[in-house]
């Protein structure tokens, strides 16, 4: 029966080419936009290089201070705070501490290069999975000795030395400081805020006074749990540890808010703070809002498609009447038209996927975001499939239901039009 439905669906599509084109265009364009957004979203918060063990990672990168006068302060953390209270946690497998990245001038002859520089400890290289093209990461001893060594990415190697190979051991001058290149890694996309940089150097070479006792600073921690199932235990221990952090100004400050969040939650906690007032990570609001926006975005073309489908289906009123007369139940007819509509949307889905691929290539090629190479993967394809089928059902179910309710005699007379 399914084959018979599909055969008929194909013929119906060919019969009204203009309607088919309009329908397919609407579906393909909507899906393209959604897929591009999903691909970018996945690229930013999915488990990708060098954060491929994301399921085991939590991030502590922002501190919220609530003042007694009602004021708020949001700030990155100090090295002291992370070193004393986070590095000493017992449940995680490893804790890496790094600075945020900052654009730092460097010169090749007379040409200025703005390189993003990040100070890291040695554990940083163990927590993240960088692909070393040559050389290796700096070690604990280098960090202890505040050795002037650096790991650079391929683009920097190419731009600074004119080659990506054989640069280990050569000197790069960043911020008027000489560093000996110890390793070259693949480029990290700029959206990977916690790991991205052009040049990584030992944290001990930072001009900051790392031991200065204060809350705010310029640092973050990436915590690797022993397993993904262990993450809640790590978070619980983190929360307990944060309760021990003394308020530097108990008269003015009310409390501190510092959490070890998964990557998505760490974004959401900041983004949703106007609504959550820092009482939660805001994911419980963010996901419904994102889903709502996606639904709204799909709803408009879906309404259009519903409209087209209603007239399309009602044109086939006589067929509906005949099918009912010969024993089709309302349910069978609904499933027939849903199959047809899902078939149509799947064709639109394939077109949308191809358009999304082209769009992502164009966005990647435009260098809008440094080192971003958006790609479609199986996960996104599965998303596309899900979204397409949802779209197909959304736009097909109402016309199919409306039509299935017709009395056969009305349908035969064509009064469903």
């Amino acid at each position, binding site marked *: *029966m399914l084959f018979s439905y599909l055969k008929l669906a194909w013929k119906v599509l060919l019969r009204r080419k203009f309607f088919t084109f309009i329908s397919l265009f609407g579906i393909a364009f909507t899906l393209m936009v959604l897929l591009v957004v999903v691909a970018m979203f996945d690229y930013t918060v999915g488990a990708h290089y060098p954060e491929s063990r994301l399921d085991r990672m939590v991030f502590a990168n922002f501190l919220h201070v609530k003042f007694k006068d009602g004021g708020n302060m949001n700030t990155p953390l100090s090295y002291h705070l992370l070193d004393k209270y986070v590095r000493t946690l017992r449940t995680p497998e490893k804790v890496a501490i790094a600075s945020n990245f900052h654009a730092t001038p460097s010169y090749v002859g007379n040409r200025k290069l703005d390189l993003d520089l990040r100070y890291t400890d040695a554990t940083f290289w163990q927590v993240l999975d960088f692909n070393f093209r040559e050389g290796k990461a700096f070690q604990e001893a280098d960090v202890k000795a505040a050795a002037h060594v650096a790991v650079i990415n391929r683009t920097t190697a190419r731009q600074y030395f004119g080659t990506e190979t054989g640069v280990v051991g050569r000197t790069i001058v960043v911020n008027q400081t000489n560093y000996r290149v110890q390793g070259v890694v693949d480029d990290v996309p700029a959206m990977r805020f916690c790991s991205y940089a052009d040049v990584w150097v030992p944290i001990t070479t930072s001009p900051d006074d790392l031991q200065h006792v204060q809350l705010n600073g310029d640092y973050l921690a990436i915590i690797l749990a022993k397993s993904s199932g262990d993450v809640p235990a790590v978070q619980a221990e983190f929360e307990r540890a944060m309760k021990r952090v003394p308020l530097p100004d108990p008269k003015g400050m009310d409390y501190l808010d510092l959490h070890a969040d998964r990557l998505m939650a760490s974004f959401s906690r900041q983004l949703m703070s106007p609504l959550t007032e820092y009482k939660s990570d805001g994911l419980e609001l963010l996901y419904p809002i994102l889903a709502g926006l996606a639904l709204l975005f799909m709803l408009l073309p879906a309404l259009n498609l519903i409209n087209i489908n209603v007239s399309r289906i009602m044109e086939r009123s006589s067929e509906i009447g005949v099918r009912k007369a*010969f024993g*089709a139940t309302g349910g069978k007819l609904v499933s027939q038209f849903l199959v047809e509509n899902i078939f149509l949307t799947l064709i639109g889905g394939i077109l949308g996927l191809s358009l999304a691929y082209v769009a992502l290539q164009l966005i990647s090629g435009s260098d809008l975001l440094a080192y971003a190479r958006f790609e479609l993967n199986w996960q996104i394809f599965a998303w596309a499939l899900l979204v397409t089928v949802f779209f197909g059902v959304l736009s097909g179910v109402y016309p199919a239901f409306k039509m299935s309710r017709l009395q*056969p005699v009305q349908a035969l007379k064509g009064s469903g039009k």
Partner: protein
Amino acid sequence: MEPTLTKSPLLTGAPAAILLKNTPMIKLLDIEKVYHTDTIETVALNRVNLTINKGEFVSVMGPSGCGKSTLLSLMGLLDEPTGGTIEIDGRAVTSYSDKELARVRNHKIGFIFQSFHLINDLSVLDNVELPLLYRAGMSGKERRQRAQAALEKVGLIARTKHFPSQLSGGQRQRVAIARALAGAPEIILADEPTGNLDSVMGDEIMDLLLGLNRQEGTTIVMVTHDENMAHKTERLIRFFDGSQVS
């Protein structure tokens, strides 16, 4: 005692219709059909009581708008009466659910329409298979065989792969008859089956229907405008203004 439906081996060869003549197949009791629009109320059928027995070939005549097509739609469960009861093969079907009605239509009734109502996007064979698609548990192979047998009966076995648009009016109506026969229904309801055909083709179709009635004992109710056709059937019912007049 009610006459039995089973054909005894001793009686094989006797016209099946004779055995069944006194058993009601379709019974209409006090049937009313009123159409409402915003301003007017039209009575299409006014308290109609009518029994069609098993194996009967009945024709229904009357001027346009007298309610004869409405009558056929109600008998075929294509529409709901405003009042009264319909019994098919001894069962009151008026309160049946959509699913139960669909089952009765699928198993017991075959329709033939004036304008054929074939699905133009489907081949002749696919059109004829249509009623069997809705029969639970029937394999594709069996569907095909039964559809081919039905096409054989109407003399169109050579046209299985054609599409309705490639056939003449008479051939299309024969495809429609094959479709009505494919499910081996006990009742055939034909709404002006020869209305769109010339007299030669009309006669061909009529002969087919008469043959079906005589050889297979199929109960047939046919709405027609054609006196000649009507006189070929066993019983003629006349309608006027929503009521049976003879």
